[in-house]
């Protein structure tokens, strides 16, 4: 029975791995921290797995837990993570080598995008990620815990910031 639960969990992680990967890369500029954060997110998802609320879509539930964990991780003393013994040395994600013609250019643009996200405050970062994921304002508000109107206002402010940033 337990193995079955673990299998379902692994399938779920596999189906939504992009969410975890993108959040980890947005919150951790440091490669060593990324591995720790992805594992911490997996642990928190596993702890919440039994209590999954079917009112949420799996992706929304995953965003809630992963973003909450990422912000906690970001704000926590890193020493605690260094001391824990349950973190494996390997990353749970791998990127296959790509030989696409546009690969290099895309990477440079992605770096630009990641730099912009890295420089936002933690809550704005969460908001921006959800916005770029094409989530609607209502869902963004639900995940963040703010009103739909507030989501619109904040996105407007970030857009202005974005314009200024890239005019420099």
């Amino acid at each position, binding site marked *: 029975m337990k193995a079955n639960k*673990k299998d379902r969990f*692994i399938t779920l*992680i*596999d189906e939504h*791995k*992009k969410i975890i*990967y*993108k959040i980890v890369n947005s919150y951790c500029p440091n490669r060593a921290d990324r591995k720790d954060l992805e*594992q911490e997110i*997996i*642990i928190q998802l*596993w*702890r*919440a797995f039994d*209590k*999954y609320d079917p009112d*949420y879509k799996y992706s929304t539930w995953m965003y*809630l*837990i992963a*973003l*909450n*964990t990422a*912000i*906690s991780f970001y*704000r926590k003393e890193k020493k*605690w993570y260094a001391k*824990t013994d*349950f*973190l*494996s040395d*390997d*990353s*749970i*994600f*791998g990127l*296959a*080598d*790509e030989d696409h013609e546009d690969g290099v250019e*895309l990477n440079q*643009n*992605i770096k*630009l*995008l990641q730099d912009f996200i890295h420089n936002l*405050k*933690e*809550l704005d970062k*969460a908001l921006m990620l959800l*916005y*770029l994921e094409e989530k609607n304002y209502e869902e963004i508000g*639900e*995940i*963040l*815990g*703010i009103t739909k109107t507030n989501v619109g206002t*904040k996105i407007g402010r970030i*857009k202005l910031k*974005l*314009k200024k*940033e*890239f005019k420099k």
Partner: protein
Amino acid sequence: METNELKELFAAYDAKLDRALQLNESSLKKIKLDRIHKQTRWISVLRSIEVVSFSILAVILGSFIADNWAVAHLAVSGVILHVFTLIALAGSIGQLVLLQQIDYAKPIVEIRKKIELVNSHALLFLKLVFLSAPIWWAYPVVALNYFFNIDIYPHIDPDFVVKYVAVNALLVFPLLWFLSKLTYKNLHIKWVRKTIGFFTGTKTKKSLEFLNEIEEFEK
């Protein structure tokens, strides 16, 4: 760059991840999923110790007050310390309740507030220490009587007692004003920031700064 361009870029990134991102299943299986979150558990243990300690103290002080009800200065000193103990006890119980409510499947702003309120608990003790400044005399009066059965009050010059009470009464309002300023909402004031940082340390100050940031975010 416009947000539309940013969205296009993000979509391209997403498509690239669709093609290239792989889950390392063996590595995922190696993670010990059932290990308890040590830090949260540790904070809960600390707060539980606080609750037990303050409860014991409240019982002891209650019995001290009952035993010395007829001796005004001992009863008043006991009541003052009892009130402070009950405030501290309520604060620690509140912390345990907050810790129980921390659930990462709840909206981010709500959870962050709870976590930062737990992290900034030291501010309550700082306020209690300052607030009890005018009645610090109550501590030795109660402690000496309880542990050594010594009543120091009759040995104190009555004139000194009157002056002490008068000066401390004058201190109450400035002190209340001072304490009302010590909140995360006033972190923009330099002396508030410095006082909190000096007495409670960086961790509490950072939590209060983040509470401020959350409030700004909610506007």
